[in-house]
Each structure stands twice: as C-alpha cells, then as structure tokens.
C-alpha cells in the first residue's frame, strides 16, 4: 500500500516536474510492470541481503573479538611480541612493565591479566562446566572502561569475589540471579554483573582483582614469590606528550620481546588477523562473494529478459536516430534503479534481521553506515556488471531487422 502510494506520488512528480526534461525511459521501464518490479527487486534484494548478512557476520565476528580491547583504558599497549592473538596467553615479565612506567612521557603502565583455559565456570542451574575468559587487574589501577566494573571496584577487592558478564551465552545459566558460584572447583561470590558479551571462542567473561586471580587461577607467574607475568601493559600518556613520541621512546626502552602498539594498532592488528588469517573471516568473505556472483546472475537474467522483450522497441529507437550511447545510458540507468529497488527493501529487512541474529548469537551484529555503503556499492557494481553483459543485446540489435 505504501509502495503503491509512493509510486503514485512519484508519477505525479514526474508528470509535473519533468515535463521539460527528456523522457525518463529507464525510470518508466522500471515502473511499467509492478509485478515484474516486485519479482526483480526480490531477486536482487536477495543477493544484497546475502551480502549484507555475510559481511555483517564477518564484521560481527571480528567486532566480538575486539570487545575487551576497545574498552582498555590506555593510549599504548605493551604485549609480548609472541602474542599473535589477543586472547592467546603470551605473557611478558612484570619487571619490563615497571621499566616502561619510568619512560619519559608515560603517566602510568598498568597490568592486565588474562586466562582462558583454567577458568571453568559451573552452570549454577544444571551443574555443567564451561570455560570462560577471565580478565584481572589491580583495583587500585583499573584498566577496563566498563562503567559497571568501574563502579564496583570496592566489591572486587573482597576475597573470592568476581564480576560476571550478564550478556554471556545462556549455557552458562541464569548469571544475573547468581550470587554464589563455582569457578575452577572453588567457591566464589558473584558481587555483580557487567554488560560485554561472548565471542566466537568464549561463552562469557569474568572480571576479578589480581589477588583473586592469583589465588583462584594460580596466575601466570611460574613462581608465586616472584612478580607475576603480565598479559597486557596498559599505558597512559602524560598530558602534553604525543602518543607517537612516547611510543617511540617505549620502543627504544623495551627489549625486543615486548611489542609497543597504540590501542588502535592493537585493534587493527587483531581485526586483520581475524579477517584474513583465521578460518572464520575468509569464510564469510567467500559467502559475500557468492552473494555477489549470484546477484550478477540474477540481475543479468532480469535485464537480459527485459531487453529481449523490448528488442524491437530499442531497434526502433536506433532506426529513429538514437545512437548506441543513448541506449547504453538507458540500460545502465535502469540497472542502477534496479540495484536501489532491490537494495532498499533488503536493507529494511536487515534492520530487523540483524537485531534478531544479534540476539541469537549474542554478538555485535550491526548494520553500520560503513556496511550500508559497502553493500550498496557492491549491489550497484553487481547490477552494472550484469548490465554490461546484457548490453550486447541492444548494441547488436539491428534496426534493419525491424523492417
């Protein structure tokens, strides 16, 4: 009904405003048969939807791997140069972090600890066990920019107390209602929850103090009497110092086993790892490509049959004295209109679909402006490419054959 009214309104607009301009043949062809338009936009929209969902999955997957990183409260990150993925444990010496805090321009260099194999959460409802990802820091030197975590620093200082991710997968049980739990066979108290979410490898996150971390999970230090090793050094730059300048100074001061990256570099490195090297990113990229290829076939079929139906008309235009340039323009414009006609409903559908998928997979599945622009361009490219293939039909149309 809305579409119907919209088309009627556009018609009126056309009749008035475009009276002096040339006949909008491509536009008229698009609207001439509404059932065909519905079929065609469904076909093209399907391909666009496929690309949007695949790329949405890919972005969502990558974004889920970056959730914690984005919330690190620092300008520069120190990590072991052995560390190729954020959640893979590869600590470096605490002593090196102390050295870093002495470097000129560094305001603070605080440790973040991380564990993901020994932290076993027991579902309080059904008693089953699941590995979760545990982050720990010194409550006096907080490093996580999660408001609920920042508000519960006093609770974190208590013994055997943790904060639980209430956006964790449901397999972990009713987390929000849990006050007493079990982690790695030890009794713990859940003082509160925060909002973060699982990712592809982990079902949920736990945050605790460094003391509880060493007590409950043994920490990553080989010798308890020794200073524990650090997973990430979160560095803040003093006001008045440029991040790049401090980064250079840190590089000079740190031994080669410690990599010095800005927060953004760390995020970019992680994102590119998941996009290219992990098996998951490329799978979704391939899925989007399949959508693109299918889209080319569909839109080629649509344009080709439409041009075939009107071959005599196009040949007549040639006989009247229209050149190939005009015909090419009409076909390309029509292909572009089809791209929009297919894309817009697919996009609208994706708003709901992404929300639904996001709830199911508990991940950051977002129809961002970048994704919108990217898939719109892909859809346009798809239709244009199909148009170039189908154009042969009108270019070879021989006006002499119409006689």
């Amino acid at each position, binding site marked *: 009904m809305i579409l119907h009214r919209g088309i009627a309104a556009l018609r009126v607009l056309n009749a008035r405003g475009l009276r*002096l301009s040339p006949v909008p043949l491509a536009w008229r062809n698009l609207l*001439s048969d509404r059932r065909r338009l519905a079929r065609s936009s469904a076909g093209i929209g399907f391909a666009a939807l496929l690309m949007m969902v695949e790329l949405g999955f890919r972005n969502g997957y990558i974004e889920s791997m970056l959730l914690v990183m984005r919330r690190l409260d620092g300008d520069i990150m120190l990590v072991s140069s052995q560390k190729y993925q954020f959640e893979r444990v590869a600590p470096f010496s605490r002593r090196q972090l102390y050295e870093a805090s002495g470097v000129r321009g560094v305001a603070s260099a605080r440790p973040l600890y991380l564990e993901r194999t020994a932290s076993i959460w027991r579902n309080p409802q059904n008693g089953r066990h699941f590995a979760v990802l545990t982050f720990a820091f010194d409550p006096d030197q907080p490093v996580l920019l999660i408001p609920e975590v920042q508000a519960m620093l006093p609770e974190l200082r208590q013994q055997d107390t943790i904060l639980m991710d209430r956006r964790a997968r449901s397999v972990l049980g009713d987390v929000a209602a849990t006050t007493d739990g079990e982690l790695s066979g030890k009794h713990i108290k859940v003082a509160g929850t925060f909002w973060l979410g699982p990712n592809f490898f982990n079902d949920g996150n736990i945050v605790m103090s460094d003391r509880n971390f060493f007590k409950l999970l043994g920490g990553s230090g080989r010798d308890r009497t020794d200073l524990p090793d650090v997973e990430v050094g979160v560095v803040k730059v003093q006001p008045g110092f440029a991040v790049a300048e401090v980064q250079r100074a840190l590089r000079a001061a740190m031994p080669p086993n410690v990599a010095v990256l800005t927060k953004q570099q760390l995020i970019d490195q992680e994102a590119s790892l998941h996009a290219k090297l992990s098996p998951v990113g490329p799978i979704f990229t391939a899925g989007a490509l399949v959508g693109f290829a299918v889209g080319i076939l569909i839109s080629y079929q649509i344009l080709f049959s439409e041009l075939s139906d*009107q071959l*005599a*008309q196009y040949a007549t235009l040639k*006989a009247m*004295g229209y050149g190939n340039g005009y015909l090419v323009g009409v076909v390309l414009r029509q292909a572009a209109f089809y791209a929009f006609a297919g894309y817009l409903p697919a996009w609208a559908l994706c708003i709901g679909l992404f929300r639904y998928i996001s709830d199911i997979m508990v991940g950051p599945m977002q129809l961002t402006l970048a994704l919108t622009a990217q898939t719109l361009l892909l859809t346009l490219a798809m239709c244009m490419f199909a148009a170039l293939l189908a154009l042969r039909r009108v270019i070879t149309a021989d006006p002499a054959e*119409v006689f």
Partner: protein
Amino acid sequence: MTPAFASTTTRPVVRVDRVSHHYGEGDSRNQVLFDASIEIGAGQLVVVTGPSGSGKTTLLSLIGALRSVQDGAIEVLDCNLTGLGRKELVAVRRNIGFIFQAHNLFDSLSAYENVKMAMQLGDCPPGEMRKRGMAILDRLGMADRADYKPRALSGGQRQRVAVARALVNRPRLVLADEPTAALDRDSSGAVVKLLKELTLKEACTIMMVTHDNRILELADRVVNIVDGRIISDVTLRDAVVICELLRGMELFSHLTPTEITRTAEKMRRRRFAKDETIIRQGEAGDEFFVISQGSVAVRRRAPDGSEQLLETLHAGAFFGERALMVDEPRNATCAATTDVEILILDKVNFRQALEQSPSFRDQIQSIYFQRQ
C-alpha cells in the same frame, strides 16, 4: 548556368542509382537486389509492391540508411549514403520518418511520451514539445488518448501513435513497411488519409511497401519489384508527371519542392495538334500556359490586318501571362507548329501561385518585362 542553390531545390528526394545488394558471403551469398534505379521527387506517394522476399524491404532499408550501400549509389535528402559510417547513417535517419508493420511502442511510456522520444531527436524546443506532440496526436484523432499507455489502446490506436511518432518532426521523407497490415478498416483509413494529406500539403515524400488496395488507389506511383528487379514503375497521377516536368524547367528552378508540388497540383495537361490555335488575339484570357513538348508560334495581327510572327517558343517556355496580370484581352495568337503538350494553369490558381511564391512571381515578372 543555373546557380548551385537552384539546382538543389529541384533535386529528387530519393535517388537510387544502379544499386545491387546481397546478404551472406561465399556459397551462402544471396543477391536480393539487382541494378535497381529509381528517382522520387517531393510530394509523391510511392507504393512499392511485389511478392515477399522480392527485395522491396531491402530497398526501403537501404534508402532509410538502416543498411550500408554495397553496390551503386543512393542519395537521400541531398545526402550521399554511399560509404557513410555508422554515426553518419544514424544522423541521416533522424531526417526520415519510419513506420513499421509493428507499432514498436514502449509499453512503459504514454502515447505522448512515445511521440516525445522522436521529438527529442528533432529541432523542437522542449517548451514547444507538448504543443506539437498533442497537435500531431490530435490530427490522428488520438489527443484524448495522449496519456494512455499502449496497453490501454487498441491495435489501430497504437499504430496511429506510431505514425504520429514518425511524423512529428515533419520529415521530408517517410518510409513505411506495411503500415496498415495490422489495422482495421477505419484505422487504416485514418492513417492513409493523413499520409496522403502530408504529400499534398507539405510535399512530404512517402515510400511505402503495401498490398492494401485502398492505398494503391491513392498512390502517385506504383513500383513493382520481383526477384530483386524493378519490373515496372508506373506514374498514376497527372500531377506527378507535371511536377517532374516543372522540375526540369528554368522558370521553376527557384521554387522550393513544395511550391512546385502545389503549382503542379493545379495544372492540367493538354495536347494540341500541329497548327491548332491555342489562344487567339482579342479574346479574354483566363489561362496560363507552359510548353512541355513541341513548339508554339506567337503571331500578332497589326491594326492594318497584316500578321507578324513575333517569336517561336519551345519546351520550357510559357505564354499567356500578360492577360492574366493586367486583365486585358490576348494581345497575340499562339498556335502549335508541331504536336505540342501544354501545361495549363487557370487564372485563379495562377494569381494564387504568384501570391504564394515570391520566387515564382519574380521569375515571371523578369521574363515578362524582358518581352516588353
């Protein structure tokens, strides 16, 4: 010598000179036209007939610059088509109106918009398009259907829109292939009537492949093609013959094709035997004469009764204009000295021709004053 511009005005609209055409190459080579020649002047309705596959459509598509000329020469609207490239052929087509057997209208466009597609190629300013488009649709009885889509029109109405599209740029040449084949009696009547009017009023040349007897009756010329050869070319209407004659005469060399056609339309042909008197001195004069064949002696009788031979006029010359211009009795006697053929224009039409065509008037006057 005749000035160059004068000769262009009287050049035929279509001149086909020893054209042959074949399709395919090698063993599959199939010749469809053999040495075809034809000249068509302005304002003629030429019907091309012949069995299917005889090459008539090929001839039409060659004249319409839809195919490249292979062998021979074709001139259309003062443009030599031989050896033209694709782009130049497209430019020539813009001056020709095409009417096809199928209407070939875009279903997505209204009747008016289909016509406007043609106007966009012509010289009509955008602000005038609606007016001109509606005018031509009105002439075809389609004004109240201008905003209908072809799907909502009957077969006859669609074809009328297609005719409007072909004619809206007022082409000097219209090529039509069985334009009435798909039409009912009334529709084809309307289409044919309009086409005929165009040839008469606007000196538009129409070349049409058809088997429709109603059109044959209106044709000025019927060209019959069999097996790729023009086997007959019959001129049916006197005006066409007269038009051809006038075109060759010095007196009419400055007239536009339209003016020639208009004048020819009003002339009659008459033959006089040797020694027959055509006009007699002292009689009231109400006709103007042009000699197309033979010669005429002009004699004046003096008041004393003696007769004097003033001059002998030959083909292309005219006489009898003075009595019409000054409203006096004939001042000489003209008699045929051989068998002659004369073209006659009556007084009313002669005066009209003078009024309507300044070049004709100038021409007559300059020769008239030379004679004084």
